[in-house]
């Protein structure tokens, strides 16, 4: 049973608009959440993270929101750029140990 779910395999957004990527989890023990971005033929690179004691973390164009009661987190990218086109993975961990990853969402930003 997947503990971290990304229900949208793909998302297309116009350049300059907001991209919202969603992630749901089932394990209430998760206390640390991350987003990774992956280009083809490269390894995932860390994007942004959030601890369970917070509900929002912002870094430039990227903001992650955490709703613990709904067991839901989302990544907002504003404004979206063509270079943001990649696969985005959300991940979660218990006490900062091994990560459990979602299945990924392919974001395509159209010029």
């Amino acid at each position, binding site marked *: 049973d997947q503990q971290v779910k990304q229900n949208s395999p793909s998302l297309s957004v116009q350049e300059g608009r907001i991209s919202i990527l969603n992630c749901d989890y089932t394990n209430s023990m998760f206390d640390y959440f991350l987003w990774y971005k992956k280009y083809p*033929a490269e390894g*995932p690179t860390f994007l942004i993270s959030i601890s369970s004691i917070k509900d929002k973390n912002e870094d430039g164009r990227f903001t992650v929101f955490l709703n613990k009661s709904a067991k839901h987190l989302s990544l907002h990218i504003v404004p979206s750029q063509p270079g943001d086109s990649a696969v985005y993975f959300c991940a979660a961990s218990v006490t900062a140990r*091994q990560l459990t990853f979602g299945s990924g969402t392919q974001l395509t930003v159209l010029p």
Partner: protein
Amino acid sequence: DVKVTQSSRYLVKRTGEKVFLECVQDMDHENMFWYRQDPGLGLRLIYFSYDVKMKEKGDIPEGYSVSREKKERFSLILESASTNQTSMYLCASTTKWERLRSNQPQHFGDGTRLSIL
């Protein structure tokens, strides 16, 4: 900057062969991980190691083993390769657990695309 290097980008092997995938990191990280990435399944943890000669099973260890003889090197071994082990394999490393709180996430190599014929 952290560097995680996987020895091969592409590898083709035959069913039944013993396959070695090598990973080296240059940041003196205690923890190292092996994942496989498959379409629709994301990244799944095969094995991880938190110290030299130490290893723990991840979510899908069957058909795999690992070796960590030196701190900087973590090897994934397919004892007898099968076609269902055709996949992208990713190695990652990170610092000790307690330092993860200061936002030091796992660093990944570029992956090895392994095909078993």
